[in-house]
């Protein structure tokens, strides 16, 4: 149990996908304008990442390795991820049209979200068992959601600030996320 907690802390905070591994920057910049859509995006990504972790582990161990098709890894992973994303999109469209609208183009783009593919590939490299792979994927997604929420909160505040003209929009968002990354460096070397 405690090991599971430690794995989650390690993946979510110490090796945060966005701030430490620099994966998934596209949605982190794109869907962080309001906390509500950030939460929606985070949950959608969590769903996809967890499912994709499970699916990619299964593919790796039951299909690619036995048939010595590791060179197809990226291809198959993309295929699976794309399908999961499609499914998520259909589901969200049905369940929450408002969220569907606010996520916009970034929802189908989870397919090409490098965090998803990146975590799936890293996951395989770690050589975890099935359960730990899923936990790894879930923990990474948790970290992604956390950063997205925090960042969205900050951006909501900055949206009301009188930022100098040269820094409005993306520049101030980059400054903010870099300072956030600075703060997260405090977790580096966390001995867990």
């Amino acid at each position, binding site marked *: 149990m405690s090991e599971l907690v430690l794995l989650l802390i390690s993946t979510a905070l110490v090796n945060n996908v966005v701030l430490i591994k620099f994966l998934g920057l596209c949605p982190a910049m794109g869907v962080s304008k309001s*906390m509500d859509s950030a939460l929606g995006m985070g949950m959608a990504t969590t769903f996809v990442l967890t499912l994709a972790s499970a699916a990619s582990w299964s593919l790796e161990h039951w299909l690619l390795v036995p048939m010595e098709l590791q060179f197809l890894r990226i291809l198959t992973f993309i295929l699976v991820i794309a399908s999961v994303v499609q499914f998520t999109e259909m589901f969200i469209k049905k369940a929450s049209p408002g969220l569907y609208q606010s996520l916009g183009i970034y929802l189908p783009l989870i397919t090409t979200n490098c965090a998803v593919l990146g975590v799936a590939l890293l996951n395989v490299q770690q050589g975890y068992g099935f359960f730990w792979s899923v936990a790894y994927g879930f923990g990474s997604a948790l970290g992604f959601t956390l950063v997205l*929420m*925090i960042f969205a*909160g*900050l951006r*909501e*505040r*900055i949206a009301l*600030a*009188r*930022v*100098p003209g040269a*820094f409005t929009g993306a*520049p*101030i968002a980059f*400054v*903010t996320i870099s*300072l*956030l990354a*600075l*703060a*997260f*460096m*405090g*977790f*580096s*070397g*966390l*001995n*867990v």
Partner: protein
Amino acid sequence: MSISYNAPQTFASPHAHGSNGVRRTMVRVQMALLPATLFGFWLYGWPAFFLWLITLLSCLVFEFMSLRLLGQAQIGRTLGDGSALLTGWLLAMTLPPWAPWWVGVVGAFIAIVIGKQVFGGLGYNVFNPAMVARVALLISFPLPLTTWVMPLPMTTALAPGFIDSLHITLGQVPIPDAMSSATMLGYAKTELSRGLDLLQALTAGHAPQLSWFGIRAGSLGESAAVLILAGGLFLLATGVIRWQAPLGVLAGVAIPAAIAHAVAPGHYLDAGTHLLSGALMLGAFFIATDYVTSPTTGGGQIIFGLGVGLMTWVIRSIGGYPEGVAFAILLMNALTPIIDRYTKPRILGRTRAGRPIDLPSAGKGA
């Protein structure tokens, strides 16, 4: 008798105002910092004073330049509100007293320009500027930021003179090894990483001694915990700060520290050491209480404080850095909008969720 009065503009109510002002607040905080700062000057000599001065002046210069670039009118008034001065002062309080001059200048640039002005200036920054600068400096220049000196009070013979001190601050003379020392937290971290047990390490002859009055290695804002505490109590008494955030920070450190120390005294420092070490007092009373970057409600401030304390302890005890106050503050600054969102006060006549309250069924007639 004719009454000649013409309103020069449309005034909105109210037509009376309280006496509190931004400047007064800033001046009070600076007054509260003064005893610990003067004590630090005495303890670490002229280099500490030079670094402090350079940091403050750089902050003012960078503030002035930013305001000029932004084309703001009334630059003098904005400089006069004392906020840039306070940022520089707080930053200087956290630097190693004998650090070279450029540490102060670079720190001031990061604090004022990147930490504050690009967000729109006073009141709009989301991270505490002094802590942004402290962390950025620590990560970028670990060596000068972790080189501490033994206390060499000005009155003692060993203390460097005025000219020698200038050389030290200008970085022309390396700090002699004999004078360098470790802070309590740094020492504990080093010894632990060498695989030593704290019980043995702390009883060794060369271990830094903990002292309330702070004749020990550290930054200006670290050594004299009691003077910082006194400044904090002054701020509490004058109503500049409120008790929630400082208490939260102290409790957030002390509680996990006490538990962990009770379980494994060989691996974890005790609560007292944690409270008196590092920038904890400074952080609790002067930085976690920063209006701009901390939550607005009392409840939110307690959560904020507890978070700062807990993360400080986590980073100190199991993280890679000996000191974690600055990181903890930045992390909680980042969480502030979320805390604010969930600790809004209840609106009169509404539930916490914002819906109008229900009528008491008895109160309504048929």
